[in-house]
C-alpha cells in the first residue's frame, strides 16, 4: 500500500516537473524570439553560428546521406525485383528520403553533432561565469549568445536535410543504376513522375525546418538551464541528444499525420 502511494507520488512529481519544464522552455522560447532582432541586425554573429552548426556538420551529413541512399538502393532493389518492378527503385529511394529519412536522420545527426556542441558551449560559458560577466557588462546574454545560436541552427537544418536527401538519391542512383544496372532513364523518369514537388519535397523541407527549430531550442535551453558544474554540463548534453531524438520522432509522427493524411 505504501509502495503504491509512493509510486503515485512519484508519478505526480514527475508530471508536475514535466509540465513546469515545458512551461519554462516555452517562456524561454518567447524570450529568445523577443531578443532575436540583434541576430539579424548583426549578421556576422549568426553567420558564425551557421558555420559552427552547418558547415561543421556538413561532412557527417553528406557521408551518412550517401550511405543511407546506397542501402536504400540495395534493399529497394531486393524487394522490388520480387514484384518485377525495379523501375520503381527511383521512386522508392526518393520518396523515403524526401518524406522521412532526410529530415529525420539529418535531424538526429544534427542534434548529436551541432546540438550537443551548442549545449556544451553555452553550458561552459555559464559554468565559467561568462554569461554573468556579459550580463554585468550590460550585454544581454540571450541576445548576444543564445539567439544567434538558435537561428544559426534553424537556418542550417533545412539545408542540411536537403543535402542529405540529395546525397541519398545520388547514393541510390549509384547502387541502382551504376552498380546493379537498373535503367537510367526509368530510374529518373519514374521518380519524376511520382514525386510531387509540393507534396513530397516541400513537406520534407517543412519537416526539417520544424526539426531545426525544436533541436536548436532544446540545445540552447539545456545549455542555458544547466547546473553550472562540469557534471551539470555533461548531463545537459546527454539531455539535449536524448530529448532532441524523442522530440524529432514524435513531431515527425504528428507532422506526417497532418501532411500525408490523404494518401
Amino acid at each position, binding site marked *: 500500500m505504501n509502495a503504491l502511494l509512493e509510486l503515485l507520488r512519484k508519478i505526480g512529481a514527475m508530471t508536475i516537473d514535466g509540465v513546469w519544464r515545458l512551461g519554462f522552455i516555452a517562456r524561454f522560447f518567447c524570450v529568445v524570439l523577443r*531578443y532575436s*532582432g*540583434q541576430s539579424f*541586425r*548583426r549578421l556576422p554573429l549568426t553567420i558564425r553560428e551557421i558555420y559552427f552548426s552547418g558547415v561543421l556538420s556538413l561532412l557527417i551529413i553528406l557521408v551518412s546521406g550517401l550511405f543511407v541512399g546506397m542501402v536504400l538502393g540495395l534493399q529497394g532493389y531486393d524487394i522490388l525485383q520480387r514484384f518485377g518492378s525495379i523501375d520503381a527503385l527511383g521512386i522508392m529511394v526518393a520518396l523515403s528520403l524526401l518524406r522521412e529519412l532526410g529530415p529525420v536522420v539529418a535531424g538526429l545527426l544534427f542534434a548529436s553533432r551541432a546540438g550537443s556542441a551548442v549545449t556544451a*558551449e553555452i553550458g*561552459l*560559458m555559464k559554468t*565559467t*561565469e*561568462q554569461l*554573468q*560577466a*556579459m*550580463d*554585468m*557588462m*550590460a*550585454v*544581454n546574454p*540571450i*541576445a*548576444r549568445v543564445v539567439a544567434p545560436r538558435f537561428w544559426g541552427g534553424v537556418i542550417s537544418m533545412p539545408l542540411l536535410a536537403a543535402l542529405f536527401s540529395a546525397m541519398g538519391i545520388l547514393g541510390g542512383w549509384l547502387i541502382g543504376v551504376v552498380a546493379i544496372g537498373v535503367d537510367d532513364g526509368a530510374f529518373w523518369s519514374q521518380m519524376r513522375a511520382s514525386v510531387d514537388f509540393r507534396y513530397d519535397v516541400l513537406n520534407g523541407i517543412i519537416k526539417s525546418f520544424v526539426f531545426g527549430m525544436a533541436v536548436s531550442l532544446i540545445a540552447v535551453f539545456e545549455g542555458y538551464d544547466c547546473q553550472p558544474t562540469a557534471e551539470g554540463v555533461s548531463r545537459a548534453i546527454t539531455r539535449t541528444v536524448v530529448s532532441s531524438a524523442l522530440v524529432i520522432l514524435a513531431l515527425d509522427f504528428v507532422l506526417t499525420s497532418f501532411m500525408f493524411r490523404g494518401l
Partner: protein
Amino acid sequence: MIVPSMCAGHPQPMNQAISNEPTANESPSSEPPSNEPISSESISNEPVVRLEQVRFAYGEREILRGVDFAVHRGQLVAIMGGSGSGKTTLLRLIGGQLHANAGKVTVAGQDLGALSTSALYALRRRMGMLFQFGALFTDMSVFDNVAFPLREHTDLPFELIRDLVLMKLHAVGLRGAAALMPSELSGGMARRVALARAVALDPLLVLYDEPFAGLDPISLGVTGQLIRQLNDALGAASIMVTHDVRVSLELVDYVYFVSDGVIVARGTPEEIRASDDPFVHQFVHAEAHGPVPFHYPAPPLASLLDEVAA
C-alpha cells in the same frame, strides 16, 4: 537622507550617444562615462554605493540581515568574512543581479530596486566587474575580450577601439599578449586581462569578486597593486570581496567584516590591525577557534551518547 531622494529626482546626465545599435535593450545609450557625470557627483559628495538596512534571503535561508554601508569615489573598500557569510551575495546585490527583499541599494543615486531592466543595463555600463576566475570569453582573443564592451556599447571607429584596448592592456602590462587566446594565459595573466576588460569603459564603480583566489604570491601582489592603481587613476569607487587579509589590509582604504549576514566590524586597515574585537582578531590572525565556531551547529555530543545508551 534628503540627498539621495534629490538625486533620484535628477537622473544622471546621460550623453546623447552616437546611436548604438548593437545592444538588445532599447535604453538610451551612453558613451563610456565621460567626465561630466563624474564631476557632478564628486560635487554632490553622494556616495557611489549606499546600502540601507538591506535584507536578503534565498527562500527560507536568510543571507543578509540588515546591512548598511556606503562607498565614496576614490575609495577602495574590502568586504571580508568567512565562506558563506554573504559577501558574494552583497556584491551581487550591488551589481543588480539580485534584488534585496527589504531595504534599499543605491548606486550612483539610483535605487536598484526601482529600476527597469533597460535602466539597470544603462547603469551597468558604468560598472565594471571582475569575476572570481576572470570569466574571459574563451572563444575570443585577449584583444577581442577587452574590446568587447567597447564594441557592444559604442560606435567608435576601429582605430580608436584598437588604441583604447591597447592602452588598457598596456596598463595591466599585457599589451604583448593581445593576440593570445585565453586558454594560452596563466591564471594571473587571465585575471589581469579580465581587469583590463572590467575597466574598458572607465567605470564609476568596480566590483571585484575574490580577485586573489588561486593566484601565486607574485601574481597576487601584481593584481593587488593594479587594483589600487586603476582605482586611483579612474577615480572610481571599488569594492573587493576577499579572504586575503594580508594583501588587502595593505591596499584598501576601508574594511567591512561580514559575519552571519550582518556587518560585525568596520574600520581603516590600521584600526582593523589594532582591533581587539574577538571576531576581527580571529580573522586577521587566522585562528581556528574564536567567535566563528569550528563546529557546525549540532546537538551536544553528550546527548548523542545518551541516545545510544538508551
